C-alpha cells in the first residue's frame, strides 16, 4: 500500500492513501489539531470532504479503525464463560439435514441441551427464535449450553445423531 505524505506550508501535513480503483482517501492534519478526511473517487474528481475531527475525535476514530477496542467475532474461538455454560456461535452448514426444518421439528433443546438465544441470518438477528422458526443454510445459531451440549449441537447440525461422543 502506498501512502503519500506531504508538508502543507502554513497548514500542516497531508496524507493520501490509495484505496483501490484510483480512489484515494486524503487526510489533512492541521497544526491546530483539526483533522479533515476527504475522499477523491478518481484522479479527475474533486476531493469531497467527509468529516472534520478534533484531535480527540480523530484518535477515537483511529482506534475504532484499528480494531483495538472492538474485535470482529471470529467463529473459530468465541468462548464466553457463563457459569458452567458458554455461549457459542455455530453455523448451519450447506448440506445440513436440519435445513428447511423448524426449530420445533429438530427438538434442538431436547436433543442437545442447548438453548438457542438468537439466530444471525445475514445482516439481521432473530432474537429468541420460536419453535416455528425455519432453519436455513448459513444461519448462525447463538446457543447457550455446556461445552458438551455445544459439541452435541455441532454434531446435530453436521448431520450426526445429536449425541455427544
Amino acid at each position, binding site marked *: 500500500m502506498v501512502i503519500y505524505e*506531504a*508538508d*502543507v*506550508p*502554513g*497548514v*500542516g501535513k*497531508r496524507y493520501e492513501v490509495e484505496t483501490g480503483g484510483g480512489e484515494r482517501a*486524503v487526510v*489533512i492534519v*492541521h*497544526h*491546530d*489539531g483539526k483533522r*479533515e478526511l*476527504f475522499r*477523491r473517487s478518481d*484522479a*479527475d474528481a*474533486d*476531493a*469531497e*470532504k467527509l468529516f472534520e475531527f478534533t484531535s480527540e475525535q480523530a484518535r477515537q476514530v483511529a482506534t475504532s479503525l484499528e480494531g483495538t477496542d472492538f474485535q470482529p467475532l471470529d467463529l473459530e474461538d468465541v468462548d464466553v464463560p457463563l457459569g458452567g455454560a458458554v455461549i457459542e456461535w455455530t453455523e448451519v452448514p450447506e448440506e445440513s439435514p436440519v435445513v428447511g426444518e423448524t426449530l420445533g421439528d429438530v427438538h434442538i433443546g431436547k436433543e442437545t441441551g442447548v438453548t438457542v438465544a438468537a439466530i444471525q441470518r445475514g445482516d439481521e438477528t432473530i432474537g429468541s427464535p420460536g419453535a416455528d422458526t425455519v432453519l436455513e443454510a448459513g444461519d448462525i445459531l447463538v446457543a447457550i449450553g455446556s461445552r458438551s451440549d455445544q459439541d452435541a449441537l455441532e454434531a446435530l447440525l453436521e448431520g450426526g445423531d445429536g449425541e455427544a461422543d
Partner: protein
Amino acid sequence: MAEALLLELGVALSVLAVAGSVARYFDQPVIPAYIAAGILVGPHAPTSVATISLQLVSESAVVETAAEVGIVLLLFFLGLEFDVGTLVRNRRRLSAVGGIDLAVNAAVGVALGVAFGFGPIGVLLVTGVVYISSSAIVTKALTDAGWLANPESEVILGTLVVEDLVIAVYLAVVAAVVGGGGTVGSALTTVVQSFVFLTALAGAAHFGTEYVDRVFGTEADELFVLRVVGTTVLVGGAALSVGASEAVAAFFVGTAFHGTDLVHRVESLVVPVRDVFAALFFFAVGLGTDLLVVADVWLLLAVAVVATTAAKLASGYASGRVYGLDERRSARVGLGLVARGEFSLIVATLAATSANPTIRTVVPAFAVGYVIAMSFVGSLSVQYGATLSESFKNWRRGRESL
C-alpha cells in the same frame, strides 16, 4: 501620556476584534478588514461621524513598533515553513513554474510602473507589490474550499515556496536600496553592509539548526514563546540597525527552526502571537492611509487590478499545464494565486521610508487600495473557483469545436 496610549491601544485591539469577526462571519479575508479598521479610527478621513470624532488612534510609536513585530513574525514563519528539500527535490518543475510566475507578473508590474511614470525605484516597488501573492489569504482560501486535498494545491503551494524565496532576496535588496538614501555611494554601502549581515545570519541559521532544539527546548510554554519571539525580534532589530531588512533577518531565524522537533510547538504556541501583531501591522497600514491619496491613484489601481489579475490567471494556468494538470485544474492554479496581501503591504512599508516624496506617498496608497481589492478578488475567485474553472473548460471546449 501613557494613559492616552493605553486607551488608544485598547481602541485599536477592540476595533480589530470587531473587524475580524465581521470578516469571518461573511467568509471574507481578515486583512482588508484590519486595514479598514485602521482607516476608520485613524487620523485621516473619515475623521468624524455625526460630529463624533473618529480620530481615536494616532500613529504612535507603540502601534508602529507592534506593526514592526508583526512583519518580523510573519517573515519568521515564512522561514519556518520554507522547505528547501521540496525546492531541491522538485527543482526542475518548480523553477519552471516559479520562473513563469516571476517573468509574467514582474513584467506586468514593470510595464505598469513605467506606463504611470515612476522612476527606477518606483518601478521596482510597484513590481514587488503586484508580483507576490498572499500566502495567508491563499492558504486560508484553499483550506476553506477543500482544495488542499486536490492536485492543484501542490502547484499553488509550490509557486508560493518559490515566491517566498524571491521575496526574501527582493526585500534584502530593496530595503538596502530604499534605506540607503539618495546617493549611489551611500546606497552601495548599505547594500554591502546588509548583505554581509544577512549572509552571516544565513550561515548561522544553517549551522545553528542542530543546536536549536537544545537552546530553545524548555518545559515551560511561556519561556519557550519568550525565547523564540525574543530571538526573532532581537535579530530583526539588529538587522535594521545596520540597514539590513529586519524581515529577511527574521526569515533566516525561521529557517533555523525548520526541520527541528520544535516546529509543531512553534506552530501551536507562537501563531496566536504572530496573528495579534500581524493584525496590528495591517491596522497600522490603515492608520497611515489617506483615502484621498488612494482616490488620486484610481486609474493606476483600476488598470493594475485588471492587468495583474489576468497575469496571475495566465501564469497560474501555464504552471498547471507544466505540472501536467488538465485545463480545469490549471485554471484553478491561476484562480488560487490571485490574492495579494501581507507581502505587498510589507513592500509598501519599505516604500513609505523612501526619501523621495512621490514614492513615499503614492506607492503605499496604491498598495493599500490594491491589496484591499485583490484580497477580495483572490478570495472570491477560490470560493467560486469550482464554477469558474468549469466554465473556463467548457469555453475552451466550445472554442476548439468551432
